[in-house]
């Protein structure tokens, strides 16, 4: 099992189509699936670390439960999975995560349908800015019109 697929979620939003695609793709490519949940939160130097501790604990519990649910259908299909959660600036956290790991075959955006790639810089999603720095293709999934 040399293939590795990363599915990235943001703020606990999950698009079921992306999950279906990731599962089918991993099954036919015999790939290991890594779930990365990014939770956006800013930590400025003026914050007291203790002030956000309770909130962080709550996020961890909630996200942990969600990730466990998400990985279940993959495990049922005998797919190897791994789930990670990162809190902070999503783009920075994704880059840091990728820097620590061996390269993935594909990165799937799991929190919605297609990303807004056109328009002003402000309207573009942070992942669009990051896509040109990625080593592997970034995949987004949309439902086909009937």
């Amino acid at each position, binding site marked *: 099992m040399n293939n590795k697929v990363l599915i990235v979620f943001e703020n606990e939003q999950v698009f079921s189509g992306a999950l279906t*695609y990731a599962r089918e*793709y991993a099954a036919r*490519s015999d790939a290991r699936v890594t779930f990365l949940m990014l939770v956006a939160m800013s930590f400025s130097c003026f914050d007291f670390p203790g002030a956000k501790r309770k909130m962080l604990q709550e996020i961890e519990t909630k996200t942990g439960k969600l990730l466990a649910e998400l990985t279940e259908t993959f495990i049922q299909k005998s797919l190897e999975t791994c789930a990670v959660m990162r809190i902070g600036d999503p783009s920075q956290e994704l880059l840091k995560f990728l820097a620590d790991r061996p390269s993935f075959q594909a990165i799937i955006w799991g929190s919605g349908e*297609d990303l807004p790639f056109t328009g002003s810089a*402000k309207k573009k999603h942070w992942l669009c800015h990051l896509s*040109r720095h990625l080593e592997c293709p970034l995949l987004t999934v949309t439902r*086909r019109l009937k």
Partner: protein
Amino acid sequence: MMPRIMVIDDDPITLKRLRRIIEKQGYKVSSYTNPLAALKQMEAHHYHLVITDVKMPGMGGMDLLINVKTHSSTTEVILMTGYASIDKAIEATREGAFYYLEKPFTPEQFLKTVKKALNRLQFYKESKRINGAKGKVSDLPVIIGKSPKIRDIETLIHQIAPTDCSVLITGDSGTGKELVARSIHALSHRAKGPFVPANCGAFNETLLDNELFGHEKGAFTGAVDKKIGLLEVADKGTIFLDEIGEMPHSMQVKLLRVLQEKELMRVGGNRTISVDLRLVSATSKNLKAEVAAGMFRKDMYYRINVVNIKMPSLKERPEDIPLLAYHIIKRLNQNTDRTINFISSRAMALLTGYAFPGNVRELENILERAAAISQGHEICARDLPPDLTELELHTYQPPKDYRMTLAELEKDYITHLLKNTNHTKAKTAEILGIDRASLWRKIKKLGLD
């Protein structure tokens, strides 16, 4: 060869109109108002496509279809009718009709259907050509594709195979790197020698050392017998080192010595063994970047990268998908007792529209599954995985040689500084060495406001 088309309709005006539409495209057309005379003509000459009306005196279109298919199964038939019904259309398709065209239709609709039928014939022809070619040189690995990128690679392989130079094959997973390596070996003067593949990413350092160099009896606990390494096995042949980017530094040094000195020493051994081998390596990583980052040895990189072959991803050559698909189907038919002859146009459209992040290997897997669940001799859209039929995939991948423009670099740096200074413009301007007004103008110009 120019396709031969026959049009049959009892209405001479319609017949003339249809004939003119096809002739305008440069095809050879024969037209008949009498189906029996048309059938007689078809027995004497082969036609690639027959377009016939359904309701005609003497012989109906359905009977004509059955007759045509009995005589020539490769002839495509399009039926036209003003009294279309779903039942009739299903019956016609079962009998082998390519399309059931409902009257009235526009010249564009008619021409589109004709072209689709001719394309299908082209696929058959190509598939036959590949199978024929495969039969002639069955012992040679065949690289399937007619795209310019694949043709260039084939030419390069033929040029470099007789030489003994090291080759580095780069490309994403599933693009056919090992197939290229096998082709190089098969076309070289080492073809009678062994081709030894090894995956450097599949072993840890100690195991890889043992696999490549072998060991002497008693070299370490458990070494109860002598083991010949893969480099020694590849003597007088070719060694293919896949995922060479994963090779540890210490192993790179050892391998470099083998390539330079043409000799190796087994683990625990005290004598050198001469080897005469050719190295073909492959990686999905950007080795140049790995060298720059100090993750891969520079001297090793230049030693293995005498000739570089870059395998295109399947997304870069979608025109090859039908050819590859029919080639895979043919191979599946040979290995199993299934006889899949055709991939429906809808299924083919879904395949050609898919991004294939897993490349040819993924296409193989999809078709294998489809062939297993297909009910007849055809792969339809419903036989494809649900994610292909229900979902649409979009890929965003920058070109590998992407370089930032000055404006992009400027934008990235200003965004980075703004974030790090909590959007304090005075501080950002100070770091950049410009005044606040200039920064403000840049923010507006780059759309960062």
